[in-house]
């Protein structure tokens, strides 16, 4: 173990952690914002509404995230109109491409999760709300979503952790996230064990922080469902 090299590379890793966290937060936030309406549509009993959303989630969940990332980062540049459009400065940046590919990916998984939890809602609760005279929108806002979102929390914590690990792909498109930092250190010192083990320790720490945060959230939001 060459500890000096690890200490010397610490600034690299700290910047990497920041990039990883920024990527993760952006992807999860954007993904969730889009997954919420999509999840409601996906749970619709009208097949003409639910099917197209299913198609989106099926394609995204059935292909590797690496392919999705390459399609956004390398693929879109193939088109003349893309390179001349006003969006090009955005899509030329690796950060934007990685963040959007990750957001699309997590959006699909979250959509399915939310739809599952919406469908699993107790029919009696909704009937009770309707018979109290609430409109469909009110039922959605007051009864369905608060309950379904809470019940989706445990599986959402898994998704968040998978996404944290997924952000390591950003290093493949030249971003200096945690994995990127480790690759940089490896190429500087040629010390693969030190470089990747350090990154692993950082990832492990981040994973534990996420698990802990979700644990607290579950205690706060799911305590009414705990077995007594």
């Amino acid at each position, binding site marked *: 173990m060459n500890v000096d090299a690890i200490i010397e590379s610490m600034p690299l890793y700290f910047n990497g952690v920041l990039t990883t966290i920024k990527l993760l937060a952006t992807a999860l936030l954007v993904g969730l914002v889009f997954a919420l309406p999509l999840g409601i549509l996906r749970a619709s009993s009208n097949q003409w509404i639910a099917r197209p959303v299913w198609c989106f989630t099926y394609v995204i969940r059935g*292909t590797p995230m690496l*392919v999705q990332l390459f399609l956004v980062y390398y693929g879109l540049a193939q088109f003349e109109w893309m390179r001349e459009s006003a969006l090009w400065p955005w899509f030329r940046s690796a950060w934007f491409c990685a963040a959007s590919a990750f957001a699309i990916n997590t959006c699909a998984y979250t959509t399915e999760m939310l739809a599952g939890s919406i469908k699993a809602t107790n029919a009696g609760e909704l009937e009770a709300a309707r018979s109290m005279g609430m409109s469909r929108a009110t039922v959605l806002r007051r009864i369905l979503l608060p309950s379904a979102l809470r019940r989706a929390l445990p599986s959402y914590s898994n998704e968040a952790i998978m996404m944290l*690990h997924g952000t390591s792909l950003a290093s493949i498109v030249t971003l200096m996230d945690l994995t990127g930092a480790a690759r940089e250190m490896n190429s500087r010192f040629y010390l*693969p064990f030190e470089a990747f083990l350090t990154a692993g320790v950082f990832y492990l720490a981040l994973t534990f922080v996420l698990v802990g945060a979700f644990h607290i959230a579950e205690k706060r939001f799911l305590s009414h469902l705990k077995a007594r």
Partner: protein
Amino acid sequence: MLHGFMPTILNGMVITLAVGLASLCIALAFGLAGASAKLSKSRGLQRLAAVYTTLIRGVPDLVLMLLIFYGGQTLINHLAPKLGYNEPIDINPFVAGVLTIGFIFGAYLTETFRGAMMAIPAGQREAGIAYGMSKPQVFLRITLPQMVRFALPSFQNNWLVIVKSTALVSVIGLDDMMFRAGLAAGASREPFVFYTLAAILYLAITTVSIILLRSLEKRFSIGVKMAKL
């Protein structure tokens, strides 16, 4: 439209499938060993399995893969001269990829198998022993066939994730489907076309897997009453 790259990409698909299936075999072995360790009476084995599943599931596959590929390379080149080999040895990316993916998904399958093993009432195992079967016989005749049914749904999930993870071996230089799609994309300057093709082929693999595993699930659930809502 594909500039004649279709055959080489289809060959890459065979490599992708080979990596996936080979890693699956290794993952099955690690998973069964891990689940048995977790359910064993030995404290040491339980701890070892707990450390294995926690550590592996806490670190990204890409980092582990790079660690095993580059780290293993240095380790071997460090050890080989001491064992009398003086020529530099290159780690085969296929072997590194398969070992890594197998090792990683062994941790996920450990949990799958543990759940499936616990779902079988202990009375059945005891009955087997009471009939005079040995422990391996009880496992093969009683536990295993029923485990398959309990494990299949999350096994399907794990297999789909393995297939998608194999795309990462292109990063350590194995010429799988992803790698060849990248070559074709570079040569033709049509990355969108070739990565879309790769996406379609991956989708084909997952779709066929889902259909096959569903029929397998039906086969293994014969004679079981399903709860209907």
